[in-house]
Structures are given as structure tokens and as C-alpha cells.
């Protein structure tokens, strides 16, 4: 509580200072609003874990497109600005697919390169853009055609964006983006199409940057290529990083702070007439100190908002425990068949010609010493990476090499050996992510706050809450997942997998870190799931558990299957004992 108290003071202070500056000098309001919109544009990508520096480039495209349309075709701004934004969207779609395959720094530099190409293009097209100082744009044509916005239009645009970001953050899309940000692999195995969301985030960022650029053109009234240089791209990123990439209001505060600071310093340090660099020095110092003492940005100062677990608890009107009985199967034959599966990493074979099948309703144990290839097997089945060779047949159809999110929505859910929860999301939210493919309201629907979304969301929350209660995590529903104990995190992982309503559940060491009582309870729970028609493949080192719950056990050693059979058989098998305890 104390934390959020201080953070509100910080936020109020930033807003108050900005308000004061803007009252004093109303034209600074334009600058503030434009920077806030640019910050949102950077946020849109950062929030999806994309280190993109393309905002300045898109702002340039937006600015020039709307200026050219306004001046050369005489379009009014309510036409020129949307057209410019559209142009940015088209460019973003074209470059997004190839560029977003790059990681971290490479993406950053590539998008920086994009910005440079845009800047140089502006210089090279003087007949259209007025060249490097853009003089033609503002003087060769009617100056008044450019300068036609009023601040309230900008404010309205920012407000609208805030609403959209707010509504998105509460929607399934927002949840999916948060999940991707925290853990893209786990998000994919929750049925989220990571590629589509990343491209969507890039597109949104481009559209917003284009909007900011278009407003910039009409607010400032003249353009030149220097307006969108490298340092501008860096400024924009600073707003978003200092503000924090966790919550949409963070970058707005960041922009507010970093826009106000130089103005304050300029006015506050006036008495130092002959040291005109001092404001810049103090500004740089402030930036360093801010990031050193608030590495998570301004947004991280705020207490997480409640995930409304209590509400969900009240809404759990439908009787039940959140676990749906597994659907009846239509296809005959084994549910999952692994045939000759191999996978190697850089010449080292992690899996070597493994074959086995799982029948509907079975609980299969997968055991073997460390490094035997158990997790590799689960990773290939769940689509984290494709096998080097071999087939995986899911209900008769081959699924090897399919994308993880498709396998997940096809009915195979998993938990992870080294816990892969969405650490900064609440327990309830983690589990609601599992409902991703079952919430049908579109993003537009969320923006319109359709009643159907409310209903779906409420149902998902209620169902998730019931599941949480069932797993004995009821008191922890509002807790941040990373703050939970090991054993509780394991349970959340299982609950999250169950929320997908899978037909096959892959559990990778679900009992690791649990004590005997917890482990026993887990065993009972798995058996209950079996009763209700779930098929389960469980990797475990707790042999008590394996012996208790499994119909059949598959033993791997050095990537190869060394035994398969009923628990009693396997526990007497010499090869197995040797693999476990070592050779006599």
C-alpha cells in the first residue's frame, strides 16, 4: 500500500508540473501530447518484447505523408492524417514479417536502419519532401494548409489512444501480450499465436507513430529530415523505458517527465547564462539516476491492480470445480503415437528413435535419469521445436513440426520442468490465459466493451477461480505468480494447463519441490483427472508418485527407450535399476 501511495505522489507530481508548464506556455502542450503518443507507440512494441526503434521512422512517414497530402492535394486534416496513418500501416505490414524474426539487438539495429532509410529517402526526394530542410513544404505552398490542428484535437487523439490501450489491456489481447512479454514459449503453448500478436503490436506501433508524426507536422507547421534522426528514435525509446514497459500509463508518465525536465531546467537554470550546456548535463544525469534507481520504470512503482479474484469468486455461480470432463474421442486407435522420434542438438542426440503410444484415458509415466531426453520428448510433442526425424501422430494425424500454439489449441497442454509461469501476472490471470482460444470477442469488441466480452471474461474468471480453489490455491489468486512457493507454482502450472481443457496433459516433473503431503495430494488429483477422462503423460522423479498413478511407465536413458511396462515390472527391471542407482 505504501508503495502505491508514493507512486501516486510521483505521478501526481509529474502531471502537476506538466500542467503548470502548459498553462504557462500553451504551445508546450502540443509537444507534450505528441511525445506521449510517441511513447505509446514505443510501448506497443516494447510491451510485446520487441526492441524496435522504428517509431521515429514511422513518425517521419506519417508526418511527410500528411503534410504532402495537405499541401499538394489540399486535403483537410481529417483526411490527410488518417491517410498518413494508413500509409504507415501498409509499410509496417510489408516490413514486419521479415524484420520481426530478428531478436533483440538485431531487431533494434534493423529498425534503426529502417529509420535511416526513411530519412535519406526524404532527403533524396526534394520535389516531394522539400529535401533536407523541407523548406519547400512550408513555403512553396500555402503555409496555412499545414498549420491546421488545434491542441484539443491532439488531446482527443491521446485520450482515445489511452482508452484503447486501457480497453486492450483488459481484454484477451492485452492478456496474451502480457503473456508473450513474460514468456513467449509458454504463451505459445497456451494456444497464443505469438507471430500474429507480435506483428499486430508492430503494426499498432507504426500506426500510432504515424499519427504522432502527422500531428507533429501540423502542429509545428514545417518539416525537415533532421526532425526524425537517430537521437529522436532514442528519445522515444527513453520515454517508454523510463516509463516502464509493464503498463500503458507508464510511458505517458515517462514522456511527461522527460518533456518537462528540459523545460524546467531551461527556465530554472537561467541564471547560469554562460553555461548553456548545464541543462543538458543535468538532464543526462537525471536520466541515468532514474534508470538506476527505478530499473523497472515509473510504472513499476505502482502496485499491481487486483485481478479481481474476489469478484470472480462471487461470480462462480455455476456449480463445479472448473475442471471440465475431457471430451469423448471420435477417432479410434491410440490417442498419441510417437514413432521413431529423434532429435539432436549440434550433433548430440538427445532423443534417439523413441516409439510408444498412449491410449485414451491412460496415465503414462516417463522416467529416466537426468539428461535421458524426457524434457526433449515433451518439447517436441508440444511443438517447442520440431523433431529431427520421426512422427508424432495426434488422434491419427501427424503433427510433428506444427507450431506450438496450434498443437495447444488442438488439445495438448503441458507444464514445464523449470517453471514457466507468467511471473508478473497474478495466479488468476495466469490461468485465464489458458482460456485464450475460447474467448471469442474480437479486439474491436473489447474496445466497444461489448456485453458478450464481459460475459465471456466473467465466465472465464469464474471458471479459473473454481479451478484455483479446487487446487487449493484460493487464497493466492491475487498473488503475483513469481512470489509463490515452488510447490504452489507447480500447482498453478498444472491449473494453467488444465484451463486449456486439453485432452492430453503433459506434466514435466509436476511434483518437483513439493513435500510428501503435497506430492500425495497431487497424486490423488492426477488420478481424479484420469477418472474424468483425461489422458496424461507425466515425467517425474518421485517414484512413489509414479508407482501410484501410472498405468504404464516408459523409461528413457541416453535418449533411447530402455524399458516400457507396468510399474511393478519396470521397478524390477535390471536395466532400470542400473540406470537409476548405477551399475553394481
Amino acid at each position, binding site marked *: 500500500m505504501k508503495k502505491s501511495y508514493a507512486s501516486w505522489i510521483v505521478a501526481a507530481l509529474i502531471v502537476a508540473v506538466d500542467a503548470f508548464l502548459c498553462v504557462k506556455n500553451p504551445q508546450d502542450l502540443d509537444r507534450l501530447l505528441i511525445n506521449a503518443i510517441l511513447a505509446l507507440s514505443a510501448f506497443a512494441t516494447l510491451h510485446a518484447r520487441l526492441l524496435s526503434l522504428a517509431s521515429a521512422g514511422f513518425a517521419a512517414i506519417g508526418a511527410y505523408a500528411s503534410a504532402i497530402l495537405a499541401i499538394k492535394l489540399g486535403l483537410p486534416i481529417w483526411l490527410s492524417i488518417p491517410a498518413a496513418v494508413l500509409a504507415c500501416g501498409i509499410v509496417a505490414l510489408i516490413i514486419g514479417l521479415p524484420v520481426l524474426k530478428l531478436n533483440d539487438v538485431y531487431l533494434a539495429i534493423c529498425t534503426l536502419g529502417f529509420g535511416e532509410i526513411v530519412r535519406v*529517402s526524404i532527403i533524396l526526394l526534394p520535389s516531394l519532401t522539400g529535401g533536407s530542410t523541407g523548406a519547400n513544404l512550408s513555403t512553396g505552398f500555402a503555409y496555412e494548409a499545414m498549420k491546421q490542428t488545434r491542441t484539443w484535437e491532439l488531446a482527443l487523439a491521446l485520450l482515445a489512444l489511452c482508452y484503447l490501450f486501457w480497453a486492450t489491456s483488459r481484454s484477451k489481447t492485452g492478456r496474451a501480450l502480457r503473456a508473450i512479454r513474460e514468456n513467449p514459449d509458454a504463451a505459445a503453448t497456451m494456444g497464443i499465436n505469438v507471430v500474429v500478436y507480435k506483428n499486430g503490436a508492430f503494426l499498432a506501433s507504426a500506426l500510432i507513430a504515424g499519427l504522432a508524426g502527422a500531428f507533429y507536422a501540423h502542429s509545428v507547421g514545417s518539416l525537415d529530415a533532421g526532425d526524425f534522426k537517430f537521437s529522436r528514435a*532514442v528519445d522515444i525509446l527513453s520515454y517508454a523505458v523510463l516509463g516502464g514497459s509493464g503498463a500503458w500509463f507508464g510511458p505517458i508518465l515517462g514522456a511527461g517527465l522527460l518533456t518537462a525536465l528540459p523545460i524546467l531546467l531551461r527556465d530554472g537554470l537561467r541564471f547560469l547564462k554562460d553555461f548553456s550546456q548545464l541543462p543538458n548535463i543535468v538532464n543526462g*544525469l537525471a536520466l541515468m539516476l532514474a534508470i538506476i534507481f527505478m530499473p523497472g520504470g515509473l510504472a513499476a512503482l505502482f502496485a499491481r491492480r487486483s485481478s479481481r479474484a474476489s469478484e470472480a469468486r462471487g461470480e462462480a455461480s455455476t456449480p463445479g470445480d472448473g475442471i471440465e470432463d475431457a471430451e469423448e474421442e471420435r477417432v479410434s486407435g491410440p490417442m498419441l503415437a510417437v514413432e521413431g522420434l529423434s532429435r539432436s542438438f549440434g550433433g548430440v542426440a538427445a532423443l534417439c528413435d523413441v516409439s510408444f503410444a498412449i491410449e485414451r484415458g491412460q496415465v503414462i509415466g516417463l522416467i529416466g535419469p537426468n539428461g535421458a531426453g524426457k524434457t526433449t520428448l515433451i518439447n517436441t510433442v508440444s511443438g517447442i521445436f520440431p523433431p529431427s526425424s520421426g512422427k508424432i501422430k495426434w488422434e491419427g494425424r501427424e503433427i510433428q513440426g506444427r507450431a506450438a500454439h496450434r498443437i495447444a489449441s488442438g488439445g495438448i497442454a503441458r507444464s514445464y520442468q523449470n517453471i514457466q509461469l507468467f511471473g508478473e501476472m497474478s495466479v488468476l490471470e495466469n490461468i485465464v490465459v489458458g482460456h485464450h482460444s475460447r474467448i471469442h470477442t474480437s479486439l474491436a469488441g473489447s474496445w466497444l466493451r461489448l456485453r458478450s466480452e464481459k460475459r465471456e471474461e466473467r465466465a472465464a474468471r469464474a471458471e479459473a477461480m473454481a479451478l484455483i480453489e479446487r487446487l487449493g490455491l484460493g487464497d493466492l489468486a491475487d498473488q503475483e505468480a513469481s512470489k509463490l512457493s515452488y510447490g504452489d507454482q507447480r500447482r498453478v502450472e498444472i491449473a494453467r494447463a488444465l484451463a486449456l481443457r486439453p485432452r492430453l496433459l503433459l506434466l514435466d516433473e509436476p511434483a518437483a519441490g513439493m513435500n510428501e503431503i503435497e506430492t500425495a495430494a497431487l497424486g490423488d488429483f492426477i488420478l481424479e483427472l484420469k477418472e474424468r477422462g483425461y489422458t496424461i503423460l507425466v515425467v517425474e522423479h518421485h517414484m512413489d508418485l509414479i508407482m501410484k498413478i501410472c498405468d504404464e511407465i516408459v523409461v528413457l536413458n541416453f535418449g533411447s527407450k530402455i524399458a516400457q511396462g507396468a510399474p511393478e515390472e519396470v521397478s524390477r527391471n535390471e536395466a532400470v535399476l542400473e540406470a537409476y542407482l548405477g551399475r553394481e
Partner: protein
Amino acid sequence: MDLSLFANPVFLVQNLVDGLSRGALYGVYAMGFTLIFGVLDILNLAHAATFMWCAFAGYLVMAVGGLPLPAGLAAAMLAGALIALLLELLAFRPLRREGADKLSSMISSIGASLILVSLAEAAFGAQTRRFPNSVLDPKPFYIGGFSGVRISRAQILILAASVVLMVGLGLFIRRTKMGKAIRAVAASQKAARLLGIDVNGVIVVTFLVAGALAGAAGILVALLTNNIVPGMGNQIELRGLAVVILGGMGNIEGAVVGGFVLGLVETFTIAYAPGGSDIKDAIAFLILFIILLVKPNGIMGRGKADRA
């Protein structure tokens, strides 16, 4: 297009010389930059500001202090090492703890860069500084007569210095105990600590070396262009990023190769492409853009495991 240019061997060799000396500069600059990335995984955006300060340090020693060229080089490299040390202690080390992401370091270095550039503006003013001719005779040598290939003392110095620095850095990294420790820290900080390596100490050395390289690049650029201003880091900063990406992040040999590639591409674009000087900036990044799409880890990129 001017076809006669293609048939002129002197012009071709001339462009090779100019392109290589331009590329050598990019390479020396990028080596220090990529070294820090290779070891710490962070983009040090204050490297360009360090570079600029070193040019001034060399200028002060040679043009104001009247000392000879080797003293200027030493002063520049020393200044670079000192500034880099300050950066590590003030801008990076406080952030090297749990929870702070890579972007934070980048923002911190942006702040540091702003401070360094502003301090330089305050200290040296906005006027361009230039070396007196006594530092380095601007008259070039001609190979094959007055209409032959021209190469200036600065170009010779730069090519020689860059070769020395590249080989020297290579030997330092490959052969010395400290160099191996740097590679160990780059490969795994945890493993290095288990070997009894003082990781923070090794990182300090890394910054000292990277700073000295920035210093060498600074003084060499200053000598070649004879144009020392507080904003001189801006252009090389972007080029440096491009070079480092071309060569594969954290790959020192790659930075050298990338530097030469960019230097030659730029020079040949200006020399042979119609309107070349207008498009050379875009060409550099366009090539980078395309290379990344085809080879996402750069020309010589080998993924993180094999770097440094």
C-alpha cells in the same frame, strides 16, 4: 552513368585505398564497441562520446601541448580508458544486478553520452578544432607519379595503426591470460566466478581496453579529417552500429571485416554509382537490412555460444 570511370585503374586503386582507410576507422571504432557487447551483452551508446573526448585529448596534447604524435596517441587511448572506466563504474555497474534489463543499461549509457557531449561543448566550445600541420604533414605520397594513386600520411598511419590494433587486440584476447579471462566472462560469468576470476575486475579491464580502442579511433579520425567538434561522434555512432551488426554482435574479427566492408561499399558507391554520394548512407543501411534478413546473425555471426 560514367563508364569511363570503370576503365580507369588508377581511380579504382585510389578508391580501394580510400575505402580501406575509411573502413579501418570504422573497424577500430567498432572493435571496442563490439567487445563490450560481447562480454556484457549491452549496447554502450556512450562509446561515440568517449571517442569524441579522446579526439580532444589528443588534440590538447599535440596541438596545445606541442607534443609529438605518439604522445597524442597515448594520451587519447589513456583518456578513452579512463572515461570507459568511469562509465563502467557509474553507468553500468549499478545496473548489473538482478531485475535490471538490458534496455536499462542502454538508457543509462544514453544519459552518460548526453553528459559527456554537453561537457565537451562546455569545455571546448562549438568551434571546430584542427591540428596544425606540424602534427602530421598533409601532403600525400603518390604512387606512380603525380597522376597516380595518392595516399596521405594520415591514411598510412590509420591503416598501420588499425592493423596493429587489430592484431594486438587479437593477440591480447587470444593469447594473454587476461584476454582468456575476458573470453571466459563473455562465455559465462558464473563459470568464470567458479574459476576464481574476479568478474567485476575483468569487466573493468574490458572497459579499459574498449575505451582505449575508442581513443585510438578518435585520434585517428581526428587526424584523417582534421575536424574535431563535440558532435563528431554522431556519424560514427550509427556507422559503428551497422558495422558491428554486419560482423555479428560481439565478434571482434567480424567488426574488422564489417568495417572494411562498409568503408569499401561507401567509397565505391560514391565513386561509381550515379548520385552515389547522396545515397551512400541509405545504401549502407539497405545492405545491412538485407543481410540481416538473410543472415539474422550478421555476416560472421555464429550465435552467442561462440562469441568473443
